[in-house]
């Protein structure tokens, strides 16, 4: 099974994402902020990270930049999943190394299509 790390400071969002991901047959782990996510990736890199933007301790963008400094056998794909929907935010995420971008709200088909695009479906 493919693995997905859901990074969001909202328990509700994590729960919703987990539910969808499990129907897509992902093994899911969770982190409440960027630092927690980075620590988790260092222990075991997932296939894909579903990443929120605004979080305490370490934001999504900071996590993405930090992830870029790490050495991985296979770098996890990163899909930003956020309410920040302006072009400037989206460009910043792509420039920082995000592979895809999902604007909230989203549904199962949207997430599934994004996973196909980054090659983890």
């Amino acid at each position, binding site marked *: 099974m493919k693995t997905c790390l859901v990074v969001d400071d909202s328990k509700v969002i994590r729960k919703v994402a987990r539910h969808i991901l499990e129907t897509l047959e992902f093994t899911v782990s969770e982190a409440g902020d960027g630092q927690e996510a980075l620590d988790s990736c260092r222990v075991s890199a997932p296939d894909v990270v579903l990443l929120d933007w605004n979080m305490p301790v370490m934001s999504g963008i900071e996590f993405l930049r930090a992830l870029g400094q790490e050495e991985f056998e296979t770098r996890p794909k990163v899909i930003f999943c956020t309410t920040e*929907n302006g072009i400037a935010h989206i460009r910043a995420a792509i420039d920082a190394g995000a592979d895809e*971008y999902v604007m909230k709200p989203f549904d199962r088909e949207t997430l599934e*299509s994004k996973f196909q695009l980054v090659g983890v479906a």
Partner: protein
Amino acid sequence: MEISDGAVRILAGLLEARTGQQLAIGRRWRIDTALRPLIAKHDIPTLDDLVHRIVSGRSAALADEAIEALLNHETFFYRDLNAFRLLDEQGMGRLHAARAGTQRLRIWSAGCSTGQEAYTIAMMIADRPDRWRGWTIDILGTDLSPAAIERAKEGRYSQFEIQRGLPVTQMLRRFDQDGEHWQASSLLRQSVRFRVHNLLTAPPVGMFDVVLCRNVLLYFSPDVRTLVFSRIASAMQADAVLMLGAGETVMGQTDAFVSDFEARGLYRKRIDATAVAAFR
């Protein structure tokens, strides 16, 4: 909201007569969901009252609105990504070689709903400037819903719609943000034309090299499906490509098409023995 069996039968009959689409018993819930806004808009007390008004013939427009509401407009960009990759690499690749002399290609997105499929094709072509430079490519999107066709022409999608299947890089490159919506760039809109067309009637004029008819035929009865397959076949060049929805097939549905032996998942017109002899 309750609706009588008789009213369901009338609505199902009206839908099938106008569009060929069947309303399966298991999808009865859809009537309530689809028509509730309509009865609220016209201040009609119940769904049975709505059907009574339609049957009485007092308002032809009301019947049109009910049909429109019952149609399923579900679609998204690059729906079934691998199928589009197959079409791009195999189907379109082959046609590129076959039409090198004329450098002309005609593509029909039949039952295109709000246009995402037709725009997907246009983006696929735009992504291969080296392959298609100098070609004249006509992309036609048709749907029986005037409202869907108007939306397709506008090319304006909600945040929810725009990201369903569309790579973010394509969104940034080929769409303009307008508040909570995104509109296809004028260049992208100019590359596709849309018009209202009912698949139960004669196909659009001319012959096509690629036809996409995806997640449409499944709503038809077997007889109507066979009829529509033959109409589509009549509008396709001998070596043209047909793309159906994931999970759809021609097997057991029609003799007009066969699986494309060079690109499994796509379909080609069956060339019968007489036609083969004629080619020799």
